[in-house]
C-alpha cells in the first residue's frame, strides 16, 4: 500500500514535470529526434493542450453521466419497462462500434474541430455508464427495497436516498470505463482538428520525429493511468463507506 502511494506520487511529479517543464527532458528525448530536428514540442504549450484535452473529456463525461443515469432510471421504472429489452439491445450493438469509427463518422455530420470530438465522446461514453447504471439499479437487494417501502418513503425518496446510493459503486465503474475510453478517443480527436494532446503524437508521426511521439505518448499514458487509478480509489472509498454505513445501521 505504501509503495503504491510512493509510485503514485512519483508518477504525478513526472507528469507535472513533463507538462510544465518539458525542456528538462531534452536529454532523454534527444536520441529519438531526427538529426538536427526539434526535440521538444513547442508549437503549442503542453499545458494548454492538456487542459483542452481534459476539458473535452470532462465535459463529455459529465454530459454522458447525466443523460445515461437519467435514462437508466427511466428504464428501470415500471412505466419504462417496455423499453428495457430495446435499451439492452442498443447498448450491446452500440458497444461493438469502434470509438474511432464513431469519431470518424461524426466528421461528415458535424465538420471538423472540437464539436464532432465532443459528440463522439458523449455518444460513446453513454453506453458503459448506462449499462452499469441499469445493472446497478435492477440488482438491488429486494429486502432493502421492501424496507424502504415499509418505512413510508415515497418513490422519489426511495430513488434518491436508497437506490442511487446503493447503485453508486457500479455506476462509478461505468463512469471509469467511459472516461478511459474518452481519454483515448480524444487523443485521436486531434486527427479531426480538436486541440488535444494527440497533436504531439500526430506531429511526431507526420515528421518522423519519434521524440514527439514518445513525449506525447508518455503524457497521455500517464494521464490515463493516473485518472484511472484515482477513480478506482474513489470507488473503493465509496464501497467502503457504504459497507461501513450498512454495518453501523
Amino acid at each position, binding site marked *: 500500500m505504501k509503495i503504491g502511494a510512493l509510485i503514485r506520487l512519483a508518477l504525478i511529479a513526472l507528469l507535472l514535470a513533463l507538462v510544465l517543464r518539458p525542456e528538462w527532458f531534452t536529454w532523454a528525448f534527444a536520441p529519438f529526434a531526427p538529426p538536427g530536428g526539434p526535440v521538444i514540442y513547442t508549437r503549442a504549450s503542453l499545458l494548454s493542450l492538456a487542459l483542452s484535452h481534459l476539458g473535452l473529456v470532462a465535459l463529455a463525461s459529465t454530459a454522458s453521466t447525466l443523460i445515461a443515469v437519467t435514462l437508466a432510471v427511466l428504464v428501470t421504472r415500471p412505466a419504462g419497462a417496455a*423499453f428495457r429489452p430495446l435499451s439492452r439491445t442498443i447498448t450491446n450493438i452500440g458497444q461493438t462500434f*469502434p470509438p474511432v469509427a464513431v469519431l470518424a463518422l461524426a466528421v*461528415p455530420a458535424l465538420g471538423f474541430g472540437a464539436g464532432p470530438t465532443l459528440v463522439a465522446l458523449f455518444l460513446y461514453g453513454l453506453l458503459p455508464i448506462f449499462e452499469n447504471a441499469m445493472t446497478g439499479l435492477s440488482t438491488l437487494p429486494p429486502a432493502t427495497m421492501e424496507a424502504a417501502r415499509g418505512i413510508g418513503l415515497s418513490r422519489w425518496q426511495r430513488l434518491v436516498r436508497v437506490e442511487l446510493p446503493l447503485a453508486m459503486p457500479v455506476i462509478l465503474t461505468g463512469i471509469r470505463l467511459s472516461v478511459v475510453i474518452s481519454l*483515448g478517443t480524444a*487523443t485521436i480527436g486531434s486527427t479531426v482538428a480538436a486541440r488535444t494532446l494527440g497533436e504531439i503524437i500526430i506531429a511526431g508521426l507526420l515528421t518522423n520525429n519519434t521524440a514527439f*511521439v514518445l513525449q506525447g*505518448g508518455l503524457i497521455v499514458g500517464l494521464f490515463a*493511468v493516473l485518472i484511472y487509478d484515482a477513480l478506482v480509489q474513489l470507488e473503493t472509498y465509496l464501497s467502503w463507506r457504504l459497507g461501513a454505513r450498512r454495518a453501523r445501521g
Partner: protein
Amino acid sequence: MLSRPGLLFAALGAAAIFLPFLTLAANRIVAGQGVPIWSLAQAAPGLVALVLGLALGVISRPALRLLGAALGLAGLLWLLVQGSNALLSDAGEFARVSPAAGFWCLLVVLSLLMADALGALSPGPWARAALLALTVGLVALLLRSGALSDLSIMQEYASRKSGFQTAALRHLGLAFGSLAAAALIGLPLGIACHSSARLREATLPVLSFLQTIPSLAMFGIMIPILGWIATAVPGAKAIGIAGIGFAPAFFALVLYSLLPVVANLLAGLQSTPPEAREAARGMGMTGFQRLIKVEFPLGLPVILAGLRIVLVQNIGLAVIAGLIGGGGFGTFVFQGLNQTATDLILLGTLPTVALALISAITMDILVELATPTAERTR
C-alpha cells in the same frame, strides 16, 4: 395492444422521411445538395413499403414487427437504387450521389426495429447463425449485383479495388493475428496465474494498466521500442520487425488483448462449482486432468466471452494502425479525414463496423453453444 418501442420507431421514422434522403454533388469533394424522398423519380413503391413497414412495427406481435422491419428495409433499398440511378442520369459526368441523413436515420430506425423484434422472438443459437449467414449473403449479393454502383462510396471502392483488398487482408491479419498471439501467450499465463495467487496479484494490475493507456499513445510508444529491437536484435529485421508499419500495431494490439484473455480465463476457471472439483478429485484425477477435463470445459463460455471482447476491441483498434503506416481500413479513414472526402471515410468505417458486428454476433453464438443446456434455458 401496441408496442411502445414500435410507436417510438414509427415517430422517429416518420420524422426521418422528411430529412434529405440523398445528396447530389457536382464532384467527389464539394458539398452536395440534399434531395428529399418525394422528389425522387418512382419513389412511390419504396415510400409505401417504408410507411407500411413502420406501421407494422407498431403491432405487439414480434413476427409482424420483424416482417415490418424487413418490408421497410426493402423499401429503403428500392429508394436508394432507384433514386441514385435517376439522379445521376440527368447530372454531370463527375456528379456523385450519396445517402444523406434521412437514409441513415431510417436505416438505424429499421435495424433497431428488427433487432427489437428479433430480441422478443429470442431465436436459438442455430437460428441466429442462419439469420446472420442469410443477412451477410444478401448484402454480399447486393454489393456484387452492381445495383449500388451509382453510389459515390461504390465509385470510391471501384477506383481502389486492389487497395481495398490489401487493406481488408491487413485488417483481418492484425485483428485475428493479435487475437491468436494473445491467446497463445494469455492462456498459459492465465493457467499459471490460476495456480499461483502471487503471480496473479502481480500480473493482473499490470495488464489492466496496459489496457488504460490510450491507443494512439500505445501505438506511438511501440514505434521506438520496436525500432530499437529491429536494429539491436540480429534477425529481427528479417522476420519483418520494424519501427513503423505492421509490427508496432500488432504488438500494441497483443498487449491490449492480454487483460481480457487472462482475466476471463481466470474467472472461467474459478467458476467451477466446488462440488464438481471435489468429485473430480475423488475420482483420482491429477491437477492437470482436472484442469483439462473439468475446469476448462465448465469455464469455456466465460473464456470465449473474453475472446469476444478482444476480437471486437482489436477490430476497432486496428483502425489506428492506419496512422502509423500499419495498413488496414484505417488507411482509408485517415486519408478521407485528410481530404475531407466523406465517402472515403465511409469506405474505411463501414467495413470495420460490419466486421465488428459480425464477429460479435458470431462469438455470442459460440458462447451460447458452449454453455451447458441446463444453464441456457434457466
